């Protein structure tokens, strides 16, 4: 420990958001630094790498206006930490934790390291309680469980944000409890920002928001989700709240990661994304969960846009390997004017098995879900066949299944702005099965 701040004027290179400083005494990995530009502007940064001659700093903010001669760098001898307090509720911050809602900064109760520490696997409580989102395609077939991380895979132009807004407005815990929402917006356009801001304002003060807009510094996109998750962990495990963390859009996060990685001249992996992207994403997603013998929970709903609608693109692919399932939006459903345009076939909720059924939702939940799946999958198969041989070339029973699949999309998946509780959802499913003479085993 140096226990002192050190100030240097020995920058030897500036490369995009990265700054190299020479002859630094005992810098630490992850140490926070402040840069003072010649025009008086101050910027924050973090130490990424140290070798015998140089220290590599990643700067949060625009590096325009920095120079080699006059810019000074102060090393603070502490790792980056976030101010924590329950007074952050109802507030809006930027990607560097500065308030942008006009009110003054709150007084922190404590500070927490933003990189977080992994939860000891033996301390984890297995998630078992369903969150009712009010959306049939999710509640009925791919239930969201408290403590789960369930991403929404969207395509450019699909109404992912309307879906998210609807979940925010309608989600209820079992026993009609309410959520606190931590909202992290990464690289959003002003249009999207405006939409989310209005949605949040309707939630009175049950939210904390971190906004990084498309025009704001890229490096802040790497920091904002960590700030959000650190706040979420504090609210959940120190203040016993149930926290829903919404991160939108993870595609922008991964692009920021790629941008920094190339600036560091690292070897690129698939599609130019760095080889450590899996571990990096895991360090965010894995912070969702519950702890044994403690109240409170962190549930994570990341939203990402699949580039070129391709689910095998590295971003959705790696995400799917870490998260516990996925909700997939599809262009085809959108074209049929269904809302939400969820394609239930590639959707999955890995934690659903233990969160539904008797004592949780309803005894017949699992059977209804399985049968709907089975018939809908068959119906989708038959559609391909129909395209070749025509409807008349199908067996009579196959024609019925085909009709059932259409009906399923129109009456079960499609629901507009209506909120359906789990009983309504299951009744609709049951009715649909009944109309075609399918009985529960």
């Amino acid at each position, binding site marked *: 420990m*140096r226990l002192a701040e050190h100030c240097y004027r020995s920058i030897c290179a500036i490369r995009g958001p990265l700054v190299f400083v020479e002859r630094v005494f*005992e*810098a*630490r*990995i992850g140490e926070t630094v402040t840069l003072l530009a010649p025009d008086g502007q101050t910027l924050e940064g973090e130490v990424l*790498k*140290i*070798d*015998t001659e140089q220290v590599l700093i990643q700067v949060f903010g625009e590096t325009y206006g920095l120079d080699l001669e006059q810019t000074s760098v102060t090393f603070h001898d502490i*790792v980056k930490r976030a101010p924590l307090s329950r007074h952050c509720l109802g507030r809006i911050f930027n990607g560097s934790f500065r308030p942008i809602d006009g009110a003054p900064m709150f007084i922190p109760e404590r500070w927490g390291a933003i*990189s977080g*520490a*992994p*939860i*000891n*696997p*033996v*301390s*984890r*409580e*297995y998630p078992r309680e369903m969150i009712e989102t009010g959306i049939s395609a999710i509640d009925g077939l791919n239930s969201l469980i408290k*403590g789960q991380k369930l991403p929404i895979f969207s395509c450019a132009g699909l109404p992912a944000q309307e879906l998210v807004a609807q979940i925010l407005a309608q989600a209820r815990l079992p026993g009609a409890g309410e959520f606190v929402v931590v909202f992290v917006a990464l690289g959003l356009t002003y249009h999207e920002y405006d939409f989310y801001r209005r949605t949040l304002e309707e939630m009175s003060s049950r939210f904390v928001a971190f906004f990084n807009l498309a025009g704001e510094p890229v490096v802040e996109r790497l920091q904002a989700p960590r700030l959000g998750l650190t706040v979420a962990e504090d609210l959940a495990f120190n203040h016993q709240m149930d926290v829903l963390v919404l991160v939108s859009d993870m595609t922008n996060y991964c692009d920021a990661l790629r941008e920094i990685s190339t600036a560091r001249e*690292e*070897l*690129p*992996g*698939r599609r130019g994304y760095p*080889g*450590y992207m*899996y*571990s990096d994403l*895991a360090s965010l*997603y*894995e912070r969702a*969960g519950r702890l044994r013998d*403690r109240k409170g929970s962190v549930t994570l709903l990341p939203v990402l846009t699949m580039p070129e609608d391709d689910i*095998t*693109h*590295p971003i959705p*692919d*790696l995400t*799917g*390997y870490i998260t*516990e399932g996925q909700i997939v939006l599809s262009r085809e459903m959108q074209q049929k004017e269904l809302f939400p345009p969820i394609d239930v*076939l*590639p959707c*999955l909720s*890995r934690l659903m*098995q*233990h969160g539904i059924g008797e004592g949780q939702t309803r005894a017949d939940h699992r059977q209804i879900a*399985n049968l709907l*799946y*089975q018939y809908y999958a068959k119906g989708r*198969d038959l559609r*391909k*066949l129909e395209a*070749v*041989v025509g409807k008349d*070339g*199908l067996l009579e029973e196959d024609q019925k299944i085909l009709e059932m699949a259409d009906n399923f999309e129109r009456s079960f998946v499609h629901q507009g702005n209506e909120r359906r509780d789990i009983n309504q959802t299951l009744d609709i499913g049951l009715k649909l099965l009944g109309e075609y003479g399918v009985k529960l085993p």
Partner: protein
Amino acid sequence: MKGVVTSISGATVSVDIRGLQLYDRVYIGHARLSGEVVHLEKDSTTVQVFEDTHGLSVGEPAEGTRAPLTVMLGPGLLGGIFDGLQRPLPALQRRSGDFIQETHDVSSLDLQQQWHFAAEKQPGDSVAIGDRLGCISEGHLRHPIYATQAGEIEQIVDGPLRLESKLVTFRGGQQQYAWENWSVRHPRFGGHKRSAEQPLITGQRCIDFLFPMMKGSVAVVPGGFGTGKTVLEQSIAKFADVDVVVYVGCGERGNEMAGLLSEFGELQDTAGRPLLERTIVVVNTSNMPVAARESSIFTAVTMAEYYRDMGYDVLLLADSLSRWAEALREISSSLEEIPGEEGYPTYLSSRLAKFIERAGVVETAEGKLGSLSMILAVSPPGADFSEPVTQSCLRAAGAFYMLDTVLAHSRHFPAINWSQSYSLFASRAAKYFRQQVEPRWTELQTACRAILQQEESLREVVEVVGMEGLQDRDRLLMFTAERVRRDFLCQNSFSDDAFSSPQQTLERIAGIINNYRQAEKRLAEGEALADILRGDGDAAG
């Protein structure tokens, strides 16, 4: 050997200690983070640190140990839950709370726990290396302790024993404890390997009947996300007919591991004992340090070999090997090595083969047969099986269970694709099953395969002309194939059907095929297909 840290980049740290060897363990910084030497150069030594390096500074002290990364082997491993460096997670939780903070040196085995040692040698006896000194009862297993050095016994404990106190003193002052340290990167056994003769019953119909594996063999299970790799692995861990199961959660989800731990605590194996009593769990979730993820499979396989060498049947399940390979890639790229295919280091396949070759049947010093089998899950990016990890595994493994995204989407579990999967042991296992279960085994197997194959070619026809266009005989076949898929190959891991004994498996398939044969006959005699199917449906319902 002491020195200081000279440069840091993520988990790769250079120190100025000289005289170390490759893979020696090094302690870094005031927090004594542990690491392993990966590169040696004249004036600097590169260390891969197994822990988070946040807050580490150049100039902090470093200490080299001149010993490689080892694990502790002794009684008390069964039922244990360890991280990739064999630190017991429950003990870490007591030390540092619910989050893994700076980790101190915690002993892997509880040295205070009392065991009962039944000595089989007496003072005055001369022993050679590998001779049995006596046994400890570890749960339901007899846990023999072998001499690790030769000599004449001066003192030997007979009765209660704590691991912290010595077990044997030899004439001349050498001592032996009831536990030993073993370097994880060295295979334990130097004796004879034997060929695999016995099938490993997994309780999964699709595997046991169509693609059986043997005790001592290696199976690879590749599948895209959501195809049920983890559920399949966990299901096999619960029911496989082996003595010891080592389960490695390598770079996987924390919630999944929590589910596994709570479920294994409640469930019982086929002999009615708590499942955890026969299981060792190694967990390195995806957000725990990358280097420890790389070492986790070696930690696990070393513990597995330890029990195999006592003559037990051990099954190692790894979920997933891709995460291990990715850790290897991350480390390799941070060392600035020249990358091979898809950025993986060029030594990926040789290192993988070396690991997989640690499986097998061995004849122990006492003349017993012990086996180490492996089932390795692979998560190919984008479900593309041509990627290097799947391909390297295929070259070394004997059975291949390909999990199919299309099957998984239609909720067919286990989603093992029957036309692409294979097992090199099918004929050897069939010989055993013919003798032990039912002489018709091979015949039924062939019939079942033929039905599935014919269905596939008929499907192409159906896609053009529709079901209406098929002849009755073919429609009967399609109907039967669907029954084989739905009632035989599908198996719900969350119901009573999760385990199927070879006998039950055989009865089920025999039922379906017998019905088919009868229906074929009735069809030939001129009965209408609809009537036959209705009757068959009633019989099945």
